[in-house]
């Protein structure tokens, strides 16, 4: 299993058989605090990779840096072999690397279906002049069809015409994920997809994420829900104090002493499955 993913020895920053994203020497300082200090990191293509670590480990900051929402002090990274450092966030998304946010950014004053349509890329009608002369009608119909398919998969089809603001927190998470998928990304980066999602939805969300992998999409996600991490991820990367401290298969890495020290702390002897939020 690990042989499909890794070349050589399994260690923090190890080489992957087929990396989709490679980052080198990425640092970000906030004043005197070094939030991120990643020497080398590779994300395997076509797999589900979990990025875990205690609060303040720099996971979200790393997400922000890689997607162009924040600027690093140093560092370079390549997505599919092409440099992505210094590329503005909207171009990162156009290259096929789309993210969601820890604090859900559903557009609440728009309907669910309009949120979805906004996610589609290369829309003719998003040019002012083409928009004025109605050249976008046929493409809009295709986009709407794609959106309706995704909404049905995420069980949001009944909410199609509702304003996103009227959805529950969990449904907004689903909507944000579905909207990100409208662009048919190569790599989707989910920042805490389970936060605030009720247990009944959790199971279907896990299935959706597995479904993405089946469709050939690479998934990288940040999550505190160990149950989810263990359940669906092929690979786990552990960060602490801005650094990558461990990597490995979920079953192995969660028994790693460095991980237990950095992350699990006092809870290391309890069943990880019972650490779910709200319990």
């Amino acid at each position, binding site marked *: 299993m690990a042989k499909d993913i890794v070349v050589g020895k399994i260690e923090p920053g190890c080489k992957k058989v087929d990396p989709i994203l490679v980052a080198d020497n990425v640092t970000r300082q906030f004043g005197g605090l070094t939030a991120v200090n990643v020497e080398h990191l590779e994300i395997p293509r076509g797999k589900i990779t979990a990025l875990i670590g205690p609060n303040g480990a720099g996971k979200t900051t790393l997400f922000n840096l890689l997607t162009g929402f924040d600027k690093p002090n140093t560092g370079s990274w390549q997505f599919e072999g092409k440099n992505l450092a210094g590329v503005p966030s909207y171009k990162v998304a156009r290259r096929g690397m*789309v993210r969601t946010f820890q604090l859900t950014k559903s557009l609440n*004053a728009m309907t669910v279906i309009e949120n979805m349509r906004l996610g589609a890329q290369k*829309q003719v009608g*998003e040019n002012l002049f083409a928009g004025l002369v109605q050249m976008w009608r046929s493409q809009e119909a295709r986009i709407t069809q794609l959106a309706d398919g995704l909404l049905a998969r995420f069980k949001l089809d009944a909410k199609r015409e509702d304003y996103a603001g*009227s959805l529950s927190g969990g449904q907004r998470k689903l909507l944000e994920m579905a909207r*990100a998928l*409208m662009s048919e990304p190569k790599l989707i980066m989910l920042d805490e997809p389970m936060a605030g999602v009720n247990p009944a939805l959790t199971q279907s969300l896990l299935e959706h994420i597995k479904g993405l992998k089946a469709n050939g999409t690479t998934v990288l996600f940040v999550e505190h829900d160990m149950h989810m991490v263990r359940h669906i991820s092929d690979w786990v990367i552990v960060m602490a104090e801005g650094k990558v401290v461990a990597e490995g298969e979920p079953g192995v890495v969660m028994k790693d002493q460095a991980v237990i020290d950095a992350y699990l702390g006092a809870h290391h002897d309890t069943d990880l499955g019972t650490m779910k939020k709200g319990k």
Partner: protein
Amino acid sequence: MDWIQTFNLTVGVILDPLTAAYILCAIGLSVHFGFTGLLNFGQAAFAAVGAYGMAIGYLTLKLPLLVAMGFALLCVVVFALILGVPTLRLRADYLAIVTIAASEVFRYLMATSAFKDVTGGSNGLSQFGYDFFDWNPIPVGKYEFGPFSWTEDQFWLRIFSFGLVAIATLLVWLMMRSPWGRVLKGIREDEDAVRSLGKNVFSYKLQSLIIGGLFAGMGGIVFVLSMSNVQPQTWVTNFTFMVWTVLLLGGAASMLGPIAGGMVFFALWVFVNEILAGMSNMGWLPFLDPAQVGQVRFILIGLALMLLVVFRPQGMFGNKKELRFNG
């Protein structure tokens, strides 16, 4: 009190070209604020650039009037670029500060005696634009429609100015139902969300600033045509705040909002003035001398604006649901 005169003035102002000028500025502001969320507190400057652009194009550059109008709109685009390129990367509230400052800078630039030969300094420019009435296809005569009574020139000016209002409204309607408009509405709520979906937010904000500015520029042109002059003191911040009141009264993110807002606002503006002046003349308002009526009107407008924002933020035509979900 002369009720018939009060009625005629109140109704007459509804189709006044100056009302159309304010409506055009408010349509521009609806693109900026209503649909894109840009807090532009310098709409007076966009109108002033249009007004001065036309006057200077005509008087100094000796352009034919129609070409001078085109020149005016070009000036507006340049102004929007100068204002937008450095500031649209900033957060919304900074834009408000920069726009209000820019509009004052532009006004003082026009008023200063340094460029008196071109701008006319503090006296402004006058006695021009009569070619506009040479275009008038309407035969000489008196035109009466119910309470309205116009000469052929007055009629022509109203057709032109409200024609522009109709065209602007149609354009905004077409833009906002297109995917382009959808991106703007997304930006209004959360720029980062739209960025994460691969849209060049900066470019859209700049386009919005230019388009809304162009409508205001048209408003400035209408203003100048109806007055046959342009003066720096017209474009004070009060102008901007009146445009804001018109917009918020009608509804910031609605098609008919600016039109209805402008008509209701100016009808009330005139009506309140007539009533207060009449009562003051009859000695019913011992605490208010007739010369103060004008100021009291501004106090009432300020009060109305506050009440509007607190109790009916969506205005007359806005969609309450679009405002209800914030956060």
